[in-house]
């Protein structure tokens, strides 16, 4: 790999480091939870390797424990994953320069974390040809970490059955706050966050995270409308 591409890869990994750190407890809890639900180890590991989507994996494992049928589990996972479609659409301007062959692994590794880091990078720097390498650095780091943590969770779950009740997703929560806050630059961004927070709270008990999708649409629309309104005033 030429030096400049290698440098982009390292940069992508470095910018993702705080999120890798935050994902560690998440991955361990997933492994421990899968173990506690009585799933064979190979199933817990295989899901991490080929699905690679934290929230979906949690929900699938939890649903399996309640005896849900395969169609119910799959449908729920699908709805939970719809936010990734929003992420992918957001990245279109930066990935369309690449071949379909390159887009396959990029899509496979599109997590909340890698989206947040690479989208941030792409909007702040001129999207360069090295975007794929930056993305690779971020995604590969997340992926390797996720596999290791799943495995640790499986092993640790044997020793510490109560590990899952510890509330370890706090790292994820504060990491997401740390990602969102620097995005809040204009009044319309603040409005979007405010509407998202209120609507997300009110629609919490909607089934299958439909509240998340509804609230996201509502918040995005509010932000865009305010931005357009403020821009119009400036022109006049």
């Amino acid at each position, binding site marked *: 790999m030429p030096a400049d591409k290698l440098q982009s890869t390292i940069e992508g990994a470095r910018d993702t*480091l*705080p*999120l890798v750190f935050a994902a560690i407890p998440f991955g361990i809890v997933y492994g421990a939870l899968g173990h506690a639900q009585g799933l*064979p180890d190979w199933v817990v590991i*295989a899901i991490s390797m*080929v699905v690679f*989507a934290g929230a*979906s994996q949690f929900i*699938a494992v939890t649903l399996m424990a309640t005896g849900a049928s*395969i169609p119910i589990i*799959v449908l729920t*996972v*699908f709805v939970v*994953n719809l*936010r*990734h479609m929003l*992420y*992918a*659409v957001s*990245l*279109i301007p930066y*990935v369309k320069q690449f071949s*379909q062959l390159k*887009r396959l692994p*990029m*899509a496979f590794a*599109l997590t*909340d974390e890698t989206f947040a880091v690479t989208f941030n990078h792409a*909007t702040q720097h001129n999207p360069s040809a090295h975007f794929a390498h930056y993305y690779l650095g971020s995604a590969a780091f997340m992926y390797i970490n996720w596999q290791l943590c799943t495995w640790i969770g499986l092993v640790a779950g044997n020793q510490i059955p109560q590990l899952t009740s510890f*509330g370890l*997703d*706090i*790292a*994820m*929560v*504060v*990491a*997401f*706050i*740390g*990602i*969102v*806050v*620097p*995005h809040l630059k204009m009044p319309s961004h603040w409005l*979007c*966050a405010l509407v*998202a*927070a209120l*609507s*997300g*709270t009110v629609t*919490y008990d909607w089934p299958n995270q439909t509240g*998340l999708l509804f*609230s*996201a649409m509502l*918040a*995005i629309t509010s*932000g*865009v409308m305010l931005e357009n309104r403020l821009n119009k005033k400036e022109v006049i």
Partner: protein
Amino acid sequence: MNYLLLIAAMVAVTFLPRYLPFYLASKLQLPRSIEQALNYVPIAVLTIIVVQTSLFKDGQLALGLNNPYIGASVVAFVVALLQKRLFITIVAGMICYAILRYWFA
């Protein structure tokens, strides 16, 4: 339960939403208004995940002091406003969480 079938189906419903927009990327010319809206995606989605995770415990709204997620989130928010390093925000939030949890346990 047929685990192989389940895993294959999960791969399909996870991969397709991620890949479909990428697949269509070159064929699709996004209108300016959509591109504008997409800038709001991270703010909207991540904020919702944050409030839904920190304000609810066991499916119930938990706004009391015995929910350490709230205090930790507020501290993380303030720390993130004051400086931009993600690591510092995460560490501050987690320390606050640990203190609150210990205090009100």
